[in-house]
C-alpha cells in the first residue's frame, strides 16, 4: 500500500510537471488564463475522452496531442477575456468568412452563415448570468481552424435541412406547382436469404472498408475525395473497392449456399434485382400492336421499360 502511495505521488508529480510545461507552451498567461484554470481545462478534456480509470500514460498521451495554444485561446475567449478575443479576431475573423464562402458557395448565404457562427462563438446568449460561447466546447483535439470549419459545416447542413422542411406550400402553389397524391411504392419482395447473407457479409467488414463503400456507393464521393479523407493514394481506393466488391460477392454467395441455394440460384439472386426487371405493360402492349397499314416497315424491337 505504501509502495502504491509512493508510485501514485510520483505519477502525480510527473503529471503536474507535464501540465506545467503545457501551460507554458499554451501561453495562457497572455490571455489571462491561470495555471489552475488551464489544469481544469485539461481535466475536462480528459473526462470527455478517456474512461475514469485511464492510465497515466494514456492521460499524458492525450494531453501531449492537444493543440494547447489554441485551446487556451478559445477558452479564454469563452471566459470573456478581451485580449483573447482580439487575438482570435485577428487570426480567425477573415478565415471564418472564407470557410463559410467555400461551404455555402453563395455569398449572401455565406455571410449569413458566418455571422450566425460568429455570434455563437462570441456568446450573445446567457444562461444564469454566464455567457454561452460555443468556443467553450472546443477541446483541442484538432486545430481551432479545423474545428471552426466543422462547426460551420454542421451549421450549414442543419440550416439547409431546416429550410427544406419549411418550404411554403402557398408559394409553391402560386408558382404553378401541382401536388399529387403520393403513389405508394410497389411492394417488392427480396429473398430473405439474400438479405441475411448480405447483412452477414457487411457485418464482416472493417470500419475503414465499410466507410469506403458507404462513401462511394451511398454518398457518391469521388475516389479522390475518399483518398484524401483517408490519407492514401487514389489508386489505393480504386483497388480497395474492386477487392471489396469481389470479397462481398464471394461471401454472399457462400452465405446463400449455406442457406440452401444452389450456385446458379445464388448468382441469380445476387445479380438480378427485381426492380431492374420492371416492364411497363402498357408500353409493351402498344409496342407489339400491329403498325398501321401504311407503316409496316417501321416495325422494330419490343420497347422495354
Amino acid at each position, binding site marked *: 500500500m505504501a509502495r502504491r502511495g509512493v508510485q501514485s505521488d510520483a505519477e502525480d508529480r510527473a503529471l503536474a510537471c507535464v501540465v506545467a510545461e503545457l501551460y507554458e507552451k499554451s501561453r495562457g498567461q497572455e490571455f489571462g488564463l491561470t495555471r489552475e484554470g488551464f489544469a481544469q481545462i485539461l481535466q475536462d478534456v480528459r473526462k470527455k475522452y478517456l474512461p475514469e480509470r485511464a492510465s497515466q500514460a494514456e492521460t499524458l498521451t492525450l494531453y501531449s496531442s492537444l493543440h494547447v495554444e489554441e485551446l487556451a485561446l478559445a477558452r479564454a475567449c469563452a471566459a470573456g477575456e478581451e485580449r483573447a478575443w482580439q487575438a482570435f479576431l485577428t487570426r480567425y475573423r477573415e478565415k471564418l468568412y472564407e470557410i463559410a464562402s467555400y461551404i455555402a458557395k453563395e455569398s449572401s448565404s455565406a455571410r449569413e452563415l458566418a455571422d450566425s457562427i460568429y455570434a455563437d462563438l462570441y456568446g450573445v446568449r446567457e444562461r444564469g448570468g454566464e455567457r454561452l460561447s460555443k468556443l467553450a466546447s472546443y477541446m483541442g483535439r484538432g486545430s481551432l481552424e479545423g474545428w471552426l470549419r466543422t462547426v460551420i459545416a454542421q451549421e450549414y447542413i442543419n440550416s439547409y435541412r431546416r429550410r427544406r422542411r419549411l418550404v411554403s406550400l402557398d408559394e409553391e402553389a402560386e408558382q404553378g406547382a401541382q401536388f399529387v397524391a403520393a403513389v405508394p411504392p410497389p411492394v417488392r419482395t427480396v429473398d430473405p436469404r439474400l438479405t441475411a447473407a448480405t447483412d452477414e457479409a457487411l457485418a464482416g467488414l472493417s470500419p475503414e472498408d465499410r466507410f469506403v463503400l458507404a462513401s462511394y456507393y451511398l454518398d457518391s464521393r469521388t475516389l479522390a475525395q475518399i483518398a484524401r479523407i483517408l490519407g492514401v*493514394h487514389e489508386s489505393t481506393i480504386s483497388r480497395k473497392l474492386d477487392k471489396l466488391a469481389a470479397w462481398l460477392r464471394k461471401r454472399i454467395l457462400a452465405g446463400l449456399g449455406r442457406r440452401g441455394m444452389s450456385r446458379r440460384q445464388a448468382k441469380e439472386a445476387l445479380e438480378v434485382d427485381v426492380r431492374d426487371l420492371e416492364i411497363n405493360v402498357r408500353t409493351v402492349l402498344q409496342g407489339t400492336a400491329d403498325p398501321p397499314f401504311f407503316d409496316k416497315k417501321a416495325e422494330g424491337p419490343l420497347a422495354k421499360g
Partner: protein
Amino acid sequence: MAELPRSIIERLRGTEKPTGHLDPDLISAFVEDSLHPADRNRVLGHLAYCSHCREISALCLAEIPVAAPRPTASAWYAWPVLRWGVVAACLLAAAALSLRHRSSRPLELARSEPSALELPRSAASPVPVPEASSSVTAKPAAPLSPGHASALPAPTVAKAPKANSGDEDEAVTAATGGPTGSSTELNEVVPGRAKEVRQEHAQLPQESERASLATAKMSSSAEAFATAAMHGPRWTLSSDGTLERSFDAGTTWETVSLPSPARFHVLSAYGMFIWLGGSSGALYHSTDAGEHWTRVEAVANGQALTEDVIGMEFTDDDHGVLTTATNQKWATEDCGQSWQKK
C-alpha cells in the same frame, strides 16, 4: 471499377445506424489525421454508419490544402540530365572496373550493419515526452541482404531530438540513389502494405547494385560522393522532430514534409529505405529516399501501437524492432506487414 449489385447497396443503406453524432473536435482531428490510431478507428467505426458525419467530414476536407509538391532543389543534382549523367558515368566506370577486376582478384563486398537509434529515457521521467532523451547511440549496420546494395558504406541513423537541451542534431547517413523528384507523397495507409509499396517503388536497378560493388573502393572524393549520391541521402531529425535530408553529404539540407502532424523521434535508414517513428505510434516507411511514404499501422494481437516510438533498430528493411516510451518492444520480420510484441 467493379460494380456492386444493387441488393448490396440497398443493404448498406439499410444497415446505417448512427448512434448520436461525432463532436466537431473529433471530426476535425480525424480529417487532419491527428488522432491516435485507436481513436481514429473508433471515429471510422462511427463514420462507416453515419451519413451525416460523413457529409460533414467531406465538407471540412475540401478546405484542407493538399500537401503541395516540394519545390525542386536548385542544386545541380536536381537537374535530371546531370543526375542521370552522373549515374551513367558511374555505370561506365563500374563496368570498366569490373572487367579489370575480373582478371585480378574477386571483389570484396563491404558489409555493414544497419544503424539503430536508441533513445534512452531519463530515469526521473517515465513520461513519454520526446524531450526526455539524454543521448543517442548508433550501432554499426548489420549485414545487408543480397537484394540490396551490399557494398554500401555503413549507413547509420540517429536522432532523437532533445527539444530543451540545445544539443546539436547529429547527421545521419545513408545510401544510394538520388530521387527523381523532390515532392513527397503519402502513398498508402494500409496495415502491412509496406512491402507491396516497396515492390512498386524500389528503384535500385541491378546495374547500379553492381556499380556500387565496383565503386566501393573508389578513393577520390568526387567518386565517393557519386557513390553516396547513388546510395541515397543523409537524414536527420531536428530538435522539433522535423525530418531533413541531404543529398550532398551534409552540405545542404532540405526539410521533408510529411502530411502528418506527428512529431518524429527516431529514424532508421539505409540505402533508399527509411523508417520513421514518432508520437502516438506514428510509423512511416519510404523505399525511395523519402519521395513517397507509407504510413504503417503496427498491430499485434489485435492491439494497435499507440505509444510514442522512441527507439528503432532495423537490421534490414524487413527485420526491425521498435521501442516505445513504456519500453515495449514491437518486432517485425516482414517489413511491417505483421508485428509481434515482446
